[in-house]
């Protein structure tokens, strides 16, 4: 069995002399997951706010559906995106399969329901409380959305962090649509899966800790921004 000292020495070796391959993988992980989170927020934040503020028939159904999609298994989503982007699929002509773009698409779709559902709940609650005073402030619906989002920006940061955490930690979707191709689509989670399959459990765990350090840095950045401006 592997010992913790073994994992620790792998971990410190990775930290001390980060080789170019590791940096490349870390960079791609960040790039894919941050882009996906950003896209999901650009769509999901206003969408969630609109869902919260607007009344329309079947609203409860849409709400339940969006909430349900938060539980979408990454591997299932990966398969759906694969079938879309496959060269023999409807969007095969785009030639996106096995590229970082495909991974961004998959993770965006994974994060979107989380951002939308959580935003909807948050805005709905604050809309209830501040409906009266806010209504005088927001003349147009879009202005209203903007005001509500801006007023809740710090809570929304936590929501986007939840989305980012989902993206950076998932392996099921990116391994199918990215293919874990060395120097092209290999990210932290697929590298961990690969090392596990090679039986190099110490290296796999050490890579896992690196991933956690990255998540910690992102969280610390967001939190300190919040402390600074809140």
């Amino acid at each position, binding site marked *: *069995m*592997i010992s913790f000292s073994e994992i620790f020495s792998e971990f410190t070796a990775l930290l001390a002399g980060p080789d170019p391959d590791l940096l490349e993988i870390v960079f791609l992980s*960040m*790039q894919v997951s*941050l*882009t996906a989170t*950003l896209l999901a927020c650009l769509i999901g934040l206003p969408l969630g706010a609109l869902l919260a503020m607007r009344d329309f028939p079947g609203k409860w159904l849409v709400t339940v559906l969006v909430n349900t999609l938060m539980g979408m298994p990454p591997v299932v989503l990966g398969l759906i995106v694969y079938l879309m982007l*496959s*060269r*023999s*699929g409807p969007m*095969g*002509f785009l*030639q*996106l*399969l*096995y*590229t*970082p*773009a495909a991974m*961004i698409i998959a993770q965006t779709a994974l994060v979107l329901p989380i951002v939308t559902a959580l935003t909807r709940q948050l805005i709905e609650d604050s809309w209830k409380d501040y409906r009266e005073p806010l209504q005088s402030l927001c003349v147009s619906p879009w202005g209203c959305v903007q005001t509500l989002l801006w007023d809740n*920006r710090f809570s929304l940061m936590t929501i986007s962090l939840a989305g980012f955490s989902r993206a950076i930690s998932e392996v099921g979707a990116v391994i199918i649509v990215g*293919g*874990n*191709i*060395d120097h*092209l689509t290999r990210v932290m989670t697929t590298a961990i899966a*690969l090392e*596990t*399959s*090679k*039986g*190099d*459990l110490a290296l796999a765990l050490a890579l896992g800790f690196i991933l956690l350090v990255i998540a910690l840095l992102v969280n610390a950045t967001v939190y300190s*921004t919040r402390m*600074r*401006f809140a």
Partner: protein
Amino acid sequence: MKKLALTTLLTAIIAFTTTAGAFAKNNSILVQSTTSTANSGLYDYLLPLFESETGIKVNVVAVGTGQAIRNASNCDADVLLVHARDAEEKFVTDGYGTQRHDLMYNDFVIIGPAQDKANIRELSNVIDALHEIADKNAVFVSRGDNSGTHKTELKLWKETGIDPTIDSGKWYRETGSGMGATLNIAVGMGAYTMTDRATWINFKNRGDHKVLVQGDERLFNQYGVTLINGDKCQSANVTQGKLFVEWLIGDKGQSEIANYRLNDQQLFHPNAR
């Protein structure tokens, strides 16, 4: 002021995320491959040689043989490199590939815990070994994923006349996973399993497991390489894929396959004709 700071942060994130290639570069080919050739480090050795000679980047998607063939049937490959002859030939007959070439071989081995409950260590006949395992209800872990290794394993069981899947979930356990995951499970459960030798040699989490049965000619493991049919898959990069296949089965590729060693052992034996 606050708004400005947040906007700056956002812009920085956007700048970071949109730099660099989100798209695959041209001048590259896509290979759907079995896992053993990737996990054993063979590609890490071979591909840079081919790339420096031709300038063609080879992108490898390493999955089980079954999935590799399925992906290639969706035209998501230029070259297919797997180890299940019947399935490869069907792939060609169905029109997805142009021609299948023998590329190289190694062998399968049966590994198991050192204490060897079924006592198969001295056996040179793999069929006898499987009989012993089944008789003793010793736990045997199967890939169960339609891979090349899984197909060969099922062929061997067929020869024993035993249908192990009747006892699936009891002593016969199908993981539905890759070779590496299955080895981790076999080691964890103290179970027997069949693996290709290259993956085993490169595998680090061996516990007290050892190679118990080897050398039976039924354990022969042939790898083949097939070029995707450009008529069937219009978007396939057949020109450069062909160069790669010809390089592999040519003198240079064949001698480099023989040159690749790990832990002082030759992992693959070239036999393209």
